[in-house]
C-alpha cells in the first residue's frame, strides 16, 4: 500500500515537471501553423517489460507497437506483446504458469497544440489475449478423508477482452528518437474462464480482476515527415 502511494506521488511529480515546460514553449512561440495530414509513422518498444523481467517481478511482458501520426494530433496505433507469469504460492504448493501473446488497437490524442517535440496524450485502447495456462499443486489432498492425488490442470484455455483508458507524455531525445510513458486504467469487457476458477494473470492485462492499472515506458522511433514550429518559422 505504501509503495502504491509512493508510486502515484512520483507520477504526479513527473506531470508537474512537464507542465511548466509546455507553458514556456507556448509563450515563446505563439500560435502554431497547421500540421500536414500525414506526418509519418513510428515504432516503439516498451522498456518497462525487460526491466520487470530483469527484476524478476511476478509477471512481465515484452511489447512493441506501431502508430501513424495524423496532424501531430491523432495517433491510431497497434501494440503487440507477449506476457508471461510463473508464480508459486507463498504458503502452499500452488504453481501457476502462462506465456502468451496479446494485442491492443486504439488511438492516442495529443493535447499539445505546439509542435515542439513534446506530446501529451490521452488515449483509448481495446485489448485481447487468448491464452493457455497451467495450474498445478503436487500436495493437493483431501484434508479429512486423505488421499494425495495431486492436482494437474495443465493447458487450460481462456481469453479476455478488455478496454484501456490511458494518459501519457513523450519527448524528443535526439533526432528521430523519443521517450515517453503511459499510465493506463484497464477494465475487463468479457472473459472466458475454465470452470476451475479465474487465472491469476492475463497476458497484456495484468493481474486478473474486473479492473487494474498498468503502464509502459516507451522508446519511440519516429519515421517519416518532420514538422516542428521552429523549422517552419525559419
Amino acid at each position, binding site marked *: *500500500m505504501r*509503495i*502504491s502511494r*509512493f*508510486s*502515484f*506521488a*512520483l*507520477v504526479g*511529480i*513527473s*506531470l508537474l*515537471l*512537464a507542465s511548466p*515546460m509546455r507553458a514556456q514553449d507556448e509563450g515563446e512561440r505563439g500560435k502554431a501553423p497547421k500540421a500536414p495530414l500525414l506526418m509519418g509513422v513510428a515504432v516503439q518498444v516498451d522498456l*518497462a517489460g525487460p*526491466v*520487470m523481467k530483469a*527484476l524478476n*517481478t*511476478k509477471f512481465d511482458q515484452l511489447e512493441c507497437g506501431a502508430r501513424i501520426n495524423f496532424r501531430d494530433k491523432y495517433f491510431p496505433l497497434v501494440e503487440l506483446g507477449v506476457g508471461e507469469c510463473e508464480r508459486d*504460492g*507463498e*504458503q*502452499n504448493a*500452488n*504453481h501457476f504458469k502462462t506465456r502468451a501473446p496479446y494485442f491492443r488497437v486504439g488511438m492516442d490524442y495529443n493535447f499539445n497544440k505546439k509542435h515542439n*517535440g*513534446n506530446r501529451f496524450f490521452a488515449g483509448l485502447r481495446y485489448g485481447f489475449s487468448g491464452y493457455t495456462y497451467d*495450474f498445478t*499443486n503436487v500436495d*493437493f*489432498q*483431501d*484434508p*479429512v*478423508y*486423505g*488421499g494425495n*492425488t495431486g*492436482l494437474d*490442470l495443465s493447458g487450460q484455455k481462456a481469453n479476455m477482452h478488455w478496454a484501456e483508458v490511458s494518459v501519457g*507524455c*513523450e*519527448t*524528443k*531525445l535526439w533526432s528521430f528518437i523519443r*521517450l515517453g*510513458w503511459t*499510465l493506463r486504467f484497464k477494465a475487463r469487457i468479457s472473459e472466458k474462464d475454465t*470452470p*476451475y*476458477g*479465474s487465472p*491469476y494473470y492475463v497476458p497484456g492485462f495484468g*493481474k486478473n480482476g474486473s479492473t487494474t492499472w*498498468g*503502464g*509502459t*515506458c516507451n522508446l519511440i522511433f519516429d519515421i517519416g515527415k518532420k514538422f516542428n514550429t521552429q523549422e517552419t518559422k525559419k
Partner: protein
Amino acid sequence: MRKAFYSVVVAFVALAGLAGCENIDCTLNNIVLCHFAFYDSETGERVVLADTLTITAEGTDSVLLNRATNSKEVGVPLSYYQEKDILNFIIKTKDGEVYENVVIIQKTGQVHFESPDCPTTMFHNISQALLHSGTVIDSVAITRREVNYLQDENIKVFLRTRRD
C-alpha cells in the same frame, strides 16, 4: 527538453513501483462445508436439535462433528474424491439413548482455485441425498446443490418428534 526527460525517468520509476506492488485478496471464508439444517417433519418448521449430535463418515477416522448440542444447522466437509459419502448422524438424547441415522450424499467434485497464494479447494455438486436408515431423522431434502464457500443451507433434515 531536460525537464521532459527527467519527467519520463521519474514516471518510469513510478511505474516500476506500481508493478511491484501487490496485495493478496483471498476469500476470507475459504472453508467448504455442506450445511444441514433441522426441521420438524410434521410442521415443516425450523427446529433446534437439543440432543447431542456427533457426525462420522465411512472412509475416514476423523469425527466430522463432535458432540454438538442445541444445533439449528451444522456444516460437514465432504470427501474430495468419493462419489458418495456415507454420513452417520449419531444422536444421543438426554436420557442416554443413542440413535444412529445414516445419510448418503451422492455428488461430483470440482476443483476451485483463485490466486496461487490462496488455498486450492474442492467444490461439490450434490446429485442426490438419501436417508439410508434412521430413527430420529425422518427424511432429507436438497435445497442447494452447490457446496462452496457460501454458508447457506444445502440439505433439510426433517426430524421425527416422536421416536418409537
